[in-house]
């Protein structure tokens, strides 16, 4: 069974082809979905890629949450479908209320484009099942608003529920609790600031991104085989 991945393209997205290439290399079928569409094709996973949707006007992700496709993305998630938001996609998911917290400007007020080391906090998610807790992943970041914030009570709730999926080893942007990636309570919606799709070939500096993307494809494969 080939996993089907729908990659949403907003005006201003710029990592959709990287995501397509990465998922296809990992064995999935990748379909592009225009943000003005009101329905999703039959897909197992929806990806909101990186970029600057709607020019980041007002706040990152603030306008994209109103794109027509977002109602279908929310319905897909509500039915247990997998959603992955990378960088700008993570910002959109937070603005849409599909993930908790918000992404503020980096604490140093500088755009950051560099390799970082991430620590897998929770391997018991569809996004990290190929990893083990504590595993280090080398994956690049490329953002100005990656400084994740939530109220302390919210952070504690996420920690208690195992929703903190990835943390920075050396926090580059001021993110609360060194958070690099979180998931929702039901663990089918995941957002992260780093770009795993840019770390899928050793020739490009790291293939650690395959751990995350491959975990998703494993999960889809196992679910397809599970008895109904």
């Amino acid at each position: 069974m080939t996993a089907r991945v729908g990659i949403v393209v907003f005006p201003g997205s710029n990592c959709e082809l990287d995501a397509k290439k990465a998922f296809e290399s990992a064995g999935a079928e990748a379909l592009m979905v225009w943000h003005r569409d009101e329905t999703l094709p039959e897909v197992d996973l929806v990806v909101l890629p990186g970029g600057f949707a709607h020019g980041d006007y007002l706040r990152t992700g603030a306008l994209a949450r109103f794109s027509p496709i977002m109602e279908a993305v929310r319905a897909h998630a509500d039915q247990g479908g997998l959603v992955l938001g990378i960088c700008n996609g993570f910002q959109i998911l937070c603005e849409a209320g599909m993930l908790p917290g918000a992404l503020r400007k980096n604490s140093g007020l500088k755009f950051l484009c560099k390799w970082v080391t991430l620590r897998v906090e929770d391997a018991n998610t569809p996004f990290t099942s190929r990893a083990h807790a504590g595993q280090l992943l080398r994956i690049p970041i490329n953002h100005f608003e990656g400084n994740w914030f939530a109220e302390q009570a919210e952070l504690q709730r996420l920690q208690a529920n195992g929703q903190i999926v990835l943390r920075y080893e050396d926090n580059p942007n001021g993110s609360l609790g060194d958070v690099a990636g979180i998931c929702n309570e039901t663990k089918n919606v995941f957002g992260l600031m780093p770009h795993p799709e840019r770390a899928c070939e050793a020739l490009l500096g790291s293939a650690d991104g395959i751990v995350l993307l491959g975990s998703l494809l494993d999960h889809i494969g196992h679910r397809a085989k599970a008895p109904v």
Partner: protein
Amino acid sequence: VDADEARLRVEEMCEKLLANPVIESYQVSIA
């Protein structure tokens, strides 16, 4: 639109788009 209705509408705009209440606060004045 009376003042109460105007306030409700503007507050809804703030909550949904104009502000992100996780990180921003807002104040509505009806003149």
